């Protein structure tokens, strides 16, 4: 089999959002609207269309499928190939496989290590299957891509640390409190980032969320969105006594929470630890609060630093992840090469089967009427003879395939077997 894998696409690095919009295939990848049909040299196809990338994977003989896929893609969006080409990247065989593995492992994503892309790729594969456009190679390639992504996630830290400020705050909270469902949160102010952090807290399973704001109506509004309750701003300190996580983002010109206040609060709550996140500018919480035992205070700069360190860490881990991708690409390449043996093995087995049936018929004819046991014994013997005769040439080809660094040697072995056994 001389199938070639082509991957063509545009992404957040090669094309601005206006261009990606023009060539998005989001509405052209259902079974009814599939943009890249398996015809005219394309034997298999897959479309991945997300907000950050549009990619088309096609399999077929030679370079013709790539051109055909380009034409179909441009046509589906009512554009020309010339309009699309300046933004395009094109990969073939190993490069295409490596790129797909990188995409699945989120090494090619805008936010390195983000988890959504794997789900999007799975959805794209599902649609290709429903559209009957995924064949032997795409099936195997996509399953491999999913397992590579899983391996990258489990063996490297490429996706392990938070890279958004609000999520980093929640991750830090989990390092302080083991079971979030036993802890209460209080949001002071109704800023957008505080709301985002509160959403993450809610997702992390925090027990109860309360919102305090100088304008009570706004507190009620936010509390409703978060599934929490609004509390009067002037009762802030009494609510702090049974609050474990505080997110503060008011527009107050000076600090509203001082170390002396927190000392009293701590005494009343019997030193139970508190995590204070101050994302207001100017800051709402006096920095000296962090010197108190069992209180952990992080301001916006501290969180930014955490996020930057996490991003740097992910980049470092990406190097290890790419080594895994390279290793898996080589393994997939080997499987792909092994497909070259398949037609010869099939021809050899079919030839053996044919000879066995002919010779068995002749022998049975010569013997005349025989009982079932004799017939069965003859059939088994003939079958095992053919299997044993086939074993040597098949092993010969497989051994050359596994030993040979140069595919030429494999092809020579295949050619030898075909000539010796007169296989067409």
């Amino acid at each position: 089999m001389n199938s070639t894998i082509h991957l063509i696409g545009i992404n957040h690095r090669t094309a601005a959002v206006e261009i990606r919009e023009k060539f998005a295939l989001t509405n052209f990848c259902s079974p009814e609207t599939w943009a890249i049909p398996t015809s005219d040299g394309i034997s298999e196809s897959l479309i991945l269309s997300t907000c950050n990338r549009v990619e088309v994977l096609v399999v077929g003989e030679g370079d013709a499928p790539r051109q055909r896929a380009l034409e179909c893609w441009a046509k589906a969006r009512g554009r020309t190939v010339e309009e699309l080409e300046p933004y395009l990247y094109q990969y073939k065989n190993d490069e295409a496989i490596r790129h797909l593995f990188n995409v699945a492992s989120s090494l090619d994503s805008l936010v390195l290590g983000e988890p959504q892309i794997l789900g999007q790729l799975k959805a794209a594969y599902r649609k290709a299957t429903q559209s009957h456009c995924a064949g032997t190679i795409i099936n195997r390639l996509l399953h491999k891509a999913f397992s590579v992504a899983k391996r990258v996630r489990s063996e490297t830290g490429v996706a392990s640390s938070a890279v958004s400020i609000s999520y980093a705050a929640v991750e830090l909270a989990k390092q302080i409190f083991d079971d979030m469902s036993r802890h209460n949160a209080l949001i002071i102010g109704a800023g957008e980032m505080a709301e985002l952090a509160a959403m993450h807290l809610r997702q992390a399973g925090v027990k109860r969320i309360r919102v305090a704001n100088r304008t009570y109506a706004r507190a009620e509004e936010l509390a409703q969105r978060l599934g929490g309750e609004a509390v009067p701003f002037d009762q802030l300190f009494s609510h702090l006594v049974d609050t474990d996580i505080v997110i503060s983002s008011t527009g107050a010109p000076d600090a509203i929470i001082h170390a002396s206040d927190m000392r009293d609060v701590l005494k009343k709550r019997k030193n139970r630890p508190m995590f204070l996140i101050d994302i207001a500018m100017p800051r709402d919480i006096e920095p000296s609060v962090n010197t108190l035992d069992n209180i952990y205070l992080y301001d916006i700069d501290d969180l930014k630093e955490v996020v930057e360190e996490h991003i740097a860490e992910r980049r470092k881990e990406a190097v290890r992840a790419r080594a895994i991708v390279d290793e898996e690409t080589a393994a997939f390449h080997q499987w792909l090469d092994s497909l070259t043996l398949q037609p010869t093995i099939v021809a050899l087995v079919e030839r053996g089967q044919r000879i066995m049936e002919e010779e068995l018929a002749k022998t049975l004819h010569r013997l005349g009427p025989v009982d079932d046991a004799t017939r069965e014994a003859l059939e088994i013997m003939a079958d095992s003879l053919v299997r044993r005769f086939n074993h040597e040439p098949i092993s010969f080809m497989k051994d050359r395939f596994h030993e040979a660094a140069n595919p030429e040697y494999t092809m020579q072995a295949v050619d030898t077997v075909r000539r010796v056994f007169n296989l067409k």
Partner: protein
Amino acid sequence: MTWTELPSYLCLALYALATVASLAGVLGRSARVKKLACLLCAGGFVAHTLWLVISIAGGAFSAVSRGFYLLPLSWCLALAGLLVARRQKMDIALHFVAPWGFFLGSCALGFSGTPGSLPLAGPLFILHLAAIFVGVGVMAVAAGAGALFLWQENAIKHKTPLEGFRKDLPALGALDRVNAMATLVGFPCYSLGILCGFLWARISWGSFMSGDFKEWISLFILALYALLFHQRQALGWRGRKPAILALIIFAASLFSMFVVNTVLSTQHGF
């Protein structure tokens, strides 16, 4: 090697393997290797239990040796670690148990030939030893949790990024809870052990105290234990202070066990 010795060697081998696997699992952040370490540690504990049972059946209590003294102590420590790992879902406790189990078990085996020097027997004496071993065993686990707490807390307080395997360590709240549980269980046990010891001394030696240094260090440990118990229960101490105190109590227990018993002249030097 006789078949009765088999559990002791098996126990040490499993604890040693568990220690190596723990280190590899924790540093390499491999969940599979960590799981293997936990299984090896649990296997080590089963062998440890057999070893203890065979020792008791062999009459070790009638001729207390230093080795036998360390055997139930290491068993109590391992049991405390296993209970914490199971109840608190904190596998890290097992990674702490394995090296200590190996160390104390090796000492127990190494000292096993030392003959007993005291006519020790009776339920009061058994209660004295058992209660003290539980008290020290749980405090050993609390000290391990305390050391981790101080290390992690320092990083969080000073905004040092938690990198590598530090991300996998239990949350501060969970580590503090180990300290709370250990104090709650350990203090009454240790107090009971000391009380039984004094009563036994009164019956056997004619006086509650004989001025032995071991008695003073035990009272000092009891006082620290009482302080920890009181401050936690009455004043709501949490976090750093109890963690530091647990480390001090465990260090004092080790001093009492290995320095006082072996270096100084004491009636407890069996």
